[in-house]
């Protein structure tokens, strides 16, 4: 439906004079399909052009292969890693370690961010007291925490989870807080007069109205969780994609570094897709935006 609206062709078809309802619907459906196909075509075309340009530039010496590698070697490296494993053991194990760290950090950080955000959003005094500390802590560049966490928590899972946590927490917290603050006054008054207790008010008005803010933050923060895990691994670990990057860096293996980046991109894209699906499920009450992307 929204796809139909988003496509200018569909609009033209709808207002074509002298056609029956069925013809109009068919034309709109055709136009929508057409539009989606064109979007998909251009997405792939740009990727292919980019990779071909890269390959050619490497081949003809426009860029130095030593630093920039080339798509074919990167693909080969990925193939190697997938079929035969890396020099540090199977690829899947490294990927699993990174994902485990990122997912635990994300889950704990998101839950904590939402809870603290809602609690402070509902309590003005607490918000005023703690806001200064949150600002101060938030101003710390997360990367410098990596060596500290590794020193305290060791080379294993805990330090990476902690890093992913601090990456996620503040983003989710500030969005949840803002979402609570933006909750419509008339709607709150309405719920109270209809008989809602404070707890019912929080649960059935404040939280749902903050939900779109919270989701916006979850979208970006899963990426941040992966960043946290990988930075942690990069600084010190025995397993993980970050370790692979670190080893590739140590042996001036640019193809290995890019291969690791490709893996991260694929994972992040998949996570984004899942997140959008969940959000669409939960937010079916929202009107379709005027310009639907995707």
């Amino acid at each position, binding site marked *: 439906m929204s796809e139909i609206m988003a496509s200018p062709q569909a609009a033209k078809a709808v207002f074509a004079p002298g056609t029956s309802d069925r013809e109009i619907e068919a034309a709109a459906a055709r136009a929508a399909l057409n539009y989606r196909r064109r979007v998909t075509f251009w997405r792939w075309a740009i990727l292919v052009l980019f990779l071909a340009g890269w390959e050619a530039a490497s081949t003809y010496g426009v860029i130095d292969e030593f630093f920039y590698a080339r798509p074919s070697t990167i693909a080969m490296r990925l193939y190697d890693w997938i079929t035969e494993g890396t020099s540090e053991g199977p690829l899947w194990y490294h990927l699993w370690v990174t994902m485990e760290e990122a997912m635990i950090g994300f889950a704990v950080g998101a839950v904590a961010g939402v809870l603290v955000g809602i609690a402070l959003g509902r309590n003005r005094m607490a918000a005023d007291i703690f806001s200064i500390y949150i600002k101060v802590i938030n101003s710390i560049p997360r990367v410098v925490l990596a060596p500290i966490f590794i020193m305290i928590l060791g080379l294993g899972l805990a330090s990476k989870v902690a890093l992913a946590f601090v990456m996620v927490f503040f983003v989710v917290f500030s969005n949840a807080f803002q979402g609570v603050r933006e909750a*419509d006054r*008339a*709607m709150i*008054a*309405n*719920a*109270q*007069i*209809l*008989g*809602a*207790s404070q707890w*019912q008010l929080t649960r*059935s*008005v404040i939280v*749902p*109205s903050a*939900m779109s803010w919270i989701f916006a933050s979850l979208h970006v923060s899963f990426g941040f969780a992966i960043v946290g895990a990988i930075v942690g691994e990069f600084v010190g670990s025995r397993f993980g994609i970050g370790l692979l990057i670190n080893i590739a860096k140590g042996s001036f293996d640019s193809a290995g570094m890019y291969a690791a980046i490709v893996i991260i991109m694929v994972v992040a894209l998949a996570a984004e897709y899942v997140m959008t699906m969940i959000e669409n499920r939960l*937010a*079916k*009450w*929202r*009107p379709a935006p005027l310009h639907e992307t995707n």
Partner: protein
Amino acid sequence: MSDHATSPAIELINVSRRFLTPDGKSMTALRDFSMSVARGEFAAVVGPTGCGKSTTLNLVTGLARPSGGEVRVMGGPVSGIDPRIGFVFQTDALFPWRNVIDNVVAGPMFRGQSREAAYAKARQWLARVNLSGHESKYPHQLSGGMRKRVALAQTFINEPEILLMDEPFSALDVQTRSLMHEELLRLWSAQRASVVFVTHDLEEAIALADKVYVLTAGPATVKAVYQVDLPRPRVVADIRYDPAFIDLSRRIWNDLREEVQIGYQRSEQAA
């Protein structure tokens, strides 16, 4: 009628309400405000914009407390939000993430009624406001008039003894508005609630109400009260051609016009 039942539904006795402006000064919105609405009575309140009409309603709900004077509901003082009160808001106050029927059951569910009872009752109320078949639509899929009817069902399902309405129909077009007037009078005559209906529209006030309060430009006090003795049941669409209606609206408008002009001059000075 028992003795207890003879006290007015709503009483404001010499009420005042002050606000602190952002620069820390005190601003008086209501002063020496007294009004009384009998049980089952339909009172309309008109006054220039910004004079303090919404403030008055908020005092009755218990969402706000008076700075001075006393507010009494059903013979007792107001403390907190009174469950016998229903409120229809000027702006859209439906929950956009709930569909129509889930919006309507909100009140009974908040008040701890069982799911089945609440949904059965909600279906009845949706039928009464002619929205059967729209149960699973979301507010953004409804027209303005339909949303308003959902809001009415949402409020009426709690069977409020006191119904406060803050310019409920001002955002609607003229035709829908007159349909809503009929609807409201029908629901009110079945329910016999006491109503305070705030509006900018003098004709709306006279057509619906038993009594019209005219407020002064802020700080608001009651400038005059007019009894509307038009017979019921009324046909809102036709009553405006009744000579008694025309005569009354001319008299009230003379009163109101002065206050509107004062309010207007003030806002010009402030600008």
